[in-house]
């Protein structure tokens, strides 16, 4: 959700440039120096207990979403569980309550929520990652052009972003959906991408501009490296740290955005489930059966929280200078 948080949380200075990349030039890309940077970051990350716990929960959630619909039965342990089709309607089982058969109860159509939460999660997480990928890809493209070329073009491109920043997130996404005309996976991804790619563009531009001033860039230029080589070999690899953090800052924004759209009835068409549309379904009878609303909502909250913690942990790991006193 946090347009601002994404920017605020990112280091303004490049992560450990001096250590990692200053040595390269002849051995451009410098695998050895980079390996030590990433190894270093890895050690710092795994010392951060909250971030590690968040990463583990995150992986478990992803595995649950991926594995449950296919491998419902765990032999020897949960053999009583049947292989439920997440979209199978059975009115005799509506709101069946918690049981071994239905660990997460069932909804008003008698659809098993344990299986449905898993497939809904697949959609939510997939939209999250795919849209994040496009957001970052566009951001890198736009931001590196603006930052690298600079001057008037940069100015014009940034003014254009200023105007885009004026457009409110949700209406922008809704209008994009209306233009596309359908509400499927692709449409949702496009709408959420279109509505929120500018922050990443701004971040990348800021990074490129700071990195451009480094000595190794000047050195590369002095030995006659072409502009694309400087950009691709020297500048972009150094934005990688920031981009990895940005994945986990962007993911919650997209997942929540999808949930909001679904919740106000503009999400993926039923019967395809996403966590947002499941919460919307649960709204019908939340007074009697709150669990139908609570389970997908808690899943969203857990995922978002994990992503936030992971992003914080990664930021601290990749750039110790920005670490808050703790």
């Amino acid at each position, binding site marked *: *959700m*946090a*347009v*601002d*948080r994404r*920017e*605020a949380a990112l280091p303004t200075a490049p992560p450990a440039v001096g250590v990692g990349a200053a040595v390269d030039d002849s051995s451009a890309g410098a695998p050895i120096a980079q390996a030590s940077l990433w190894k270093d970051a890895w050690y710092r990350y795994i010392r951060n207990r909250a971030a590690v716990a968040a990463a583990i929960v995150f992986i478990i959630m992803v595995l649950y979403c991926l594995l449950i619909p296919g491998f419902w039965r765990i032999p020897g342990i949960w053999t009583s569980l049947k292989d439920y089709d997440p979209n199978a309607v059975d009115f005799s089982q509506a709101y069946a309550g918690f049981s071994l058969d239905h660990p997460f109860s069932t909804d008003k159509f008698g659809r098993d929520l344990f299986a449905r939460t898993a497939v809904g999660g697949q959609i939510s997480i997939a939209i999250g990652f795919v849209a994040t990928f496009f957001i970052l890809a566009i951001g890198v493209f736009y931001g590196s052009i603006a930052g690298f070329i600079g001057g008037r073009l940069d100015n014009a491109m940034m*003014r*254009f972003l*200023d*105007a*885009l*920043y*004026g*457009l*409110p*997130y*949700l*209406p*922008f996404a*809704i*209008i*994009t959906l*209306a*233009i596309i*005309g359908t509400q499927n996976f692709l449409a949702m991804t496009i709408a959420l991408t279109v509505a929120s790619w500018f922050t990443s563009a701004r971040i990348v531009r800021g990074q490129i501009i700071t990195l451009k001033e480094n000595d190794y860039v000047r050195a590369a230029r002095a030995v006659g490296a072409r502009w694309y080589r400087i950009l691709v070999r020297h500048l972009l690899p150094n934005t990688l740290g920031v981009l990895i953090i940005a994945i986990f800052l962007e993911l*919650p924004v997209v997942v*929540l955005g999808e*949930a*909001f759209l679904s*919740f*106000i*009835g*503009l999400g993926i068409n039923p019967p395809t489930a996403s966590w947002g549309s499941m*919460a919307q379904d649960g*709204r019908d009878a*939340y*007074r009697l059966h*709150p669990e139908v*609303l*609570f389970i997908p*909502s*808690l899943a*969203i*909250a*857990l995922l*978002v*929280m994990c992503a*936030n*913690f992971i992003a914080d942990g990664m930021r601290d790991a990749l750039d110790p200078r920005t670490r*808050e*006193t*703790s």
Partner: protein
Amino acid sequence: MTTFIIRRVVWTIPVILLVILMTFLMMRQIKGNPFRHTERNVPEAIQKNLERKFHLDRPWYVQYAYYVEGVFTFDLGPSMAQRTRTVNDVVRDGFPRSLKLGLLAYLWAIVFGVPAGILAALKPNSIFDYFAMLFSSIGFALPSFFVATLLIYYVAVKFGLVPTNGWPTGFFQLDSRVILPSFALGLFPMAYFARLVRGAMLETMQQDYVRTAKAKGLRYRRVIGLHVLRNSLIPAVTATAPLLGLIITGTFVIEFIFSIPGIGRYFINSVSNRDYSVVMGITVLTSVIIVIANLFVDIMYGVLDPRTREAR
């Protein structure tokens, strides 16, 4: 300073024009002619007349010019779905309610979020700090529709403390019905402010001038109040503008859940009714508000932190 403000204000005009242009071009991409949706077959002549009345027979840039003229003269045109109402009527009805909701949400955030951040920063790693940050992490993650429904379920339905929905009519009228929606909307900014202020405070407290102030023998209260607090609240002021976008997004959902007839609810209804002039009017209105809020914050930032005047 005056030149900075003038330059910044003048710059806002092309940004607003560009925002309107973007919205305008996007709305044109949506398929469908507003006059061909009716069940009755509209005769060719009437169709032509209607198109002429709404300038639909002119090229797009002329239509854009008409629309811009409308925006600057506060006339957002007729509603396409509600025959007797104009977009202005819709805005006049809905906007004060949404504005009140948003302001109350900010109030929650400032009254609870900022002090929580300050107290947490004064005693880092204390129990209070721990709980404030835990609360802030949760506030970040919980989707506002979930918070809203949770509140309705427990506070309104189970214990019956406040009504489940509704909204007082007058702008300055407040009653128990505003508590839940504004809190649900304010939770995110609250968490955000708490974290932001805490981070800024901790950073400021490590500055040299704070050490100097302490070394001079200033009293703790004076160091915190005069040197730390003043400088740490600047980020909170700057954050108001980007937060506004989130608050607006939040109002859409909160108004939907609590059945508050604000612009967010009108917007959602208009999207499903294909009432595009209302959709466009509300989008343009919110965009202009965001642009103006950005302007205001930039100027405030320039006043509070003179170093930024030239850089921007």
